[in-house]
């Protein structure tokens, strides 16, 4: 039986999340066991000091999948672009 192909996603960062990350976007391959937004955040926090800084308070970081707001429990299956950012302050 063929294995499930590993899922590659584009991550995008905005505002102070972008500043703490030191970059606006990157491509990552989702590891096994990372199936939701909050699981992705938990894994990212282990990937280096800039991730630790950006996601130090995960409750204040919002997420969008393919340019639609989602909750931390949202599944990543099929996602192409996942964005992380602070609560919005436009208007």
């Amino acid at each position, binding site marked *: 039986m063929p294995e499930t192909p590993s899922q590659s996603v584009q991550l*995008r960062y*905005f*505002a102070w999340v972008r500043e703490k990350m030191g970059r606006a976007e990157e491509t990552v391959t989702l590891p096994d066991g990372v199936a939701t937004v909050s699981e992705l955040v938990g894994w990212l926090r282990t990937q280096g000091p800039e991730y630790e800084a950006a996601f130090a308070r995960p409750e204040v970081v919002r997420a*969008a999948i393919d*340019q639609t707001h989602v909750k931390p429990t949202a599944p990543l299956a099929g996602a192409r672009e996942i964005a992380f950012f602070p609560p*919005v*302050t*436009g*208007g």
Partner: protein
Amino acid sequence: MAVRVQLEDFDLGREVAALTAGRHDIGAIVTFTGTVRGSDKGAPISEMTLEHYPGMTETELERIEAEATARWPLAASLIIHRHGALRPGDNIVLVVTASPHRQAAFEAAEFLMDFLKTRAPFWKKETRMDGSGGWVDAREADDAALDRWQSAKT
């Protein structure tokens, strides 16, 4: 029904004139213009920079406008939001709603602003006169303002 995200300024009078020209089905036009204030919590501001999420911004604004159009009998509507570097007094956002009746025009304009404030992916960064600065925190009052439309839906 239109949405624009742009660096350039907008002209309130010209936008309303274009939206309502030749229309005889409109009785009420409400506009909201948001501008950069010269200070924030007493600290003078020299500049404000608006970052946004190209693509998602337009999608969210169109979704918000479609929701308003579904809820109220709007004859026309317009949302313009600027991004980039702005100074005190500069325009940030324009919302226009036109309807046969004033209550619909007022409510739809407030609804658009409440959703825009809490859903449209824009982030403000202030630079103060003393050189310090930082990202503007989201206001809890904006979330509260949004809630009234959700309870009104039931």
